[in-house]
């Protein structure tokens, strides 16, 4: 599993304790947007929105990239990816499946042995 460190979790919770920032995340979950777009949508000043995005960016929940004069924001999946969390989940799934498959195959082998004996 992903081992989130306590300071990181704290900063994530702090970032999420604000309804505007949760709204921003929800919005970015649907599509990326510039800071200006976000400011307009949430009826805020550019400076105010920059602050909110900054808080989200520091936790890794959002990543931003400057394209020309526009700063684009999107949901940051870096932390999820770098921990390889989903590969681990995927491995757990196959581990569980294959141990169940072991049982099925074992059962088939047992039956084969019995059938073989009966034929003799």
């Amino acid at each position: 599993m992903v081992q989130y460190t306590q300071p990181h979790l704290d900063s994530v919770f702090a970032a999420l304790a604000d309804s505007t920032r949760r709204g921003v995340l929800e919005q970015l979950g649907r599509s990326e947007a510039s800071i200006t777009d976000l400011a307009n949508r949430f009826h805020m000043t550019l400076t105010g929105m920059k602050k909110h995005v900054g808080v989200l960016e520091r936790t890794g929940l959002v990543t931003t990239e400057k394209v020309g004069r526009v700063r684009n924001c999107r949901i940051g999946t870096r932390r999820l990816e770098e921990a390889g969390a989903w590969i681990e989940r995927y491995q757990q799934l196959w581990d569980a499946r294959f141990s169940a498959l072991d049982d099925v195959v074992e059962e088939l082998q047992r039956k084969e042995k019995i059938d073989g004996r009966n034929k003799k």
Partner: protein
Amino acid sequence: MDATRNSESATERNPVTVERTSERELVVTRTFDAPARLVFEAWTKPELFRKWWVPKSMGMTLRSLEMDARTGGSYRLDFGDGMDFFGTYLEVTPHSRIVWTNEEGGDNGSVTTVTFEEKGGKTLLVMSEVYPSKEALDAAGTGAADAMHETFGQLDDLLAQLHA
């Protein structure tokens, strides 16, 4: 680990390896202590397949399963609530190779190839999943945005409780 699993079957499980071999491919490898024809049988006979494909730890139940494991045949797994997995067998070569499409993913669906190689009574199974693009694999893996949403939903609930 599953606490209900009995100690007999929990002993010395062969390890599973998962490797992202390229931007578009995931490879899973596992050895089985049985001949290839038996392992193959468990992948191609629906009454056997359903016994292992949905382990209890997944927390899901298979409502119905249709599979015609022959080249050109099709399959459909129905988990209810509109959750269906379906596709076509592109190749089924007894005891050595199965290839199928995963069409529920639409244009981003992967193609799965499973090979069975027998050595000294044991079978080396290699399963490869190839996606049409890096993005498709990433999306399938995490459902990153969805997972984030789900997590946020849970955090929202938690925060609401804390504020109450």
